[in-house]
């Protein structure tokens, strides 16, 4: 029996030493980039690795921000100028990859995610960090911009060139760039051997791994009140993105105008107040949250299906919560008396 006791003792000692090792820790850091506050949480690492992770994220986000910022003087502004002149533009492989993914997502969303309506967004005044409460554009101007109907379908991409057959195409990747940047940052983290982290850029996030002994817990903010409306525990590698009418807006003459412009009408989409999407790829989740917000209460299940999104929560103006069956299985509603409609599109 002696060897058994001995090995039990050995296992017990090992257990004790394991316990007295570094306790579970979450390092958090805040940084300002992408025009927003980025929160980084990294679990169970020594400080040097955590700092390295923050540096990786900061660098990756800054690269995408510089390249694709819609209204700061930079590469994208030059591209937009050349597009307006009908020129063929030479692009590198990373730009190709970015544009190709955006084009595919736009096609899958029936062009509801439309990153070519930059001039419409500019007319609405959302090409500034802080839009003043001034008058919205006139109906005439909106109609003029809308009738040109630019979309990603006007774009032809080759490995090295970009051309457009519609001079009205003006890129604005506000509903895609953040997700793309987060994806890039997370890929870099994984390559650096970091397994457990959350990158949260202005409320939209991708979480990998876990908080050690339990999954990462994400609270989804209530779209019109203080506090949290729902919570999600992430599993493995997931992105949680929300588009809401409360994120950027201005008030004029007693009316509120938000930043999610429906390319079909030229006006802010008003059927939903927020849409939350879970998908492993952050860029896809980003574009889908916007497209489904514009699709609204009746059209979203179809667009979600086309985009390959099966976890959606949409909240309408009466605070009715619409959910896909898969979302309903995993999300925890945190408010009382919620009106919930589960849309099962597996019929």
């Amino acid at each position: 029996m002696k060897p058994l006791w001995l090995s039990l003792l050995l296992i017990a000692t090992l257990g004790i030493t394991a316990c007295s090792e570094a306790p579970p820790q979450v390092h958090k850091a805040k940084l300002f980039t992408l025009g927003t506050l980025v929160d980084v949480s990294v679990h169970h690492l020594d400080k040097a690795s955590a700092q390295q992770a923050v540096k990786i994220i900061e660098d990756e986000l800054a690269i995408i921000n510089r390249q694709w910022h819609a209204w700061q003087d930079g590469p994208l502004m030059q591209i937009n100028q050349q597009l307006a002149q009908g020129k063929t533009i030479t692009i590198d492989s990373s730009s190709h990859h970015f544009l190709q993914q955006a084009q595919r997502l736009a096609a899958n969303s029936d062009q509801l995610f439309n990153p070519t309506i930059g001039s419409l967004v500019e007319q609405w005044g959302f090409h500034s960090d802080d839009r003043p409460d001034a008058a919205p554009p006139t109906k005439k101007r909106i109609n003029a911009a809308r009738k040109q109907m630019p979309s990603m379908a006007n774009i032809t991409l080759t490995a090295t060139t970009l051309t457009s057959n519609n001079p009205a195409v003006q890129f604005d990747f506000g509903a895609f760039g953040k997700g793309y940047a987060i994806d890039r940052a997370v890929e870099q983290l994984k390559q650096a051997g970091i397994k457990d982290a959350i990158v949260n850029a202005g409320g939209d996030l991708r979480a990998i791994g876990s908080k050690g002994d339990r999954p990462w817990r994400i609270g989804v903010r209530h779209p019109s009140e203080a506090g949290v409306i729902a919570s999600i525990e992430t599993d493995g590698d997931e992105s949680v993105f929300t588009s809401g009418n409360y994120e950027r807006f201005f008030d004029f003459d007693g009316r509120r105008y938000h930043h999610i412009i429906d390319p079909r009408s030229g006006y802010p989409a008003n059927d939903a107040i927020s849409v939350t999407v879970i998908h492993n790829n952050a860029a896809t989740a980003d574009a889908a949250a916007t497209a489904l917000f514009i699709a609204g209460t009746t059209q979203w299940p179809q667009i979600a299906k086309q985009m390959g999104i099966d976890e959606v929560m949409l909240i309408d103006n009466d605070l009715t919560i619409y959910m896909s069956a898969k979302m309903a299985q995993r999300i925890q509603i945190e408010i009382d008396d919620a009106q919930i409609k589960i849309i099962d599109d597996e019929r």
Partner: protein
Amino acid sequence: MTRADYYIVLFAALLLPYLYISQWTGDKAGISATIMNGNETTEVSLAHDHTLEIDGALGTSTIKIENGKIRFTASPCLGKQCIHSGWLEHAGEFAACLPNRISVAVLGEAPRFDSINF
């Protein structure tokens, strides 16, 4: 004392109880602690005995976790007020090494969410 003086004294007499009630309610045992170093926050569990060495603005501060309590044991500051703060064990207790920009706060419960989506 003028009438205005009395108002000021009254104001102070009302402010102090308010501050104590608003800041010092709850005497729960601490479960975890947050350590803030400059702009970085680290959340540590008090369930595991452990010693942390943290590089701050001036040098290395040592923070010790033992039997569900946490304290500064060494710091490169002159006054050593952080060390004199002693063991922290109840939710809300706090110690700081201002020159080294490192502070410790005890939390009664772990934050419910790791990140907020909006």
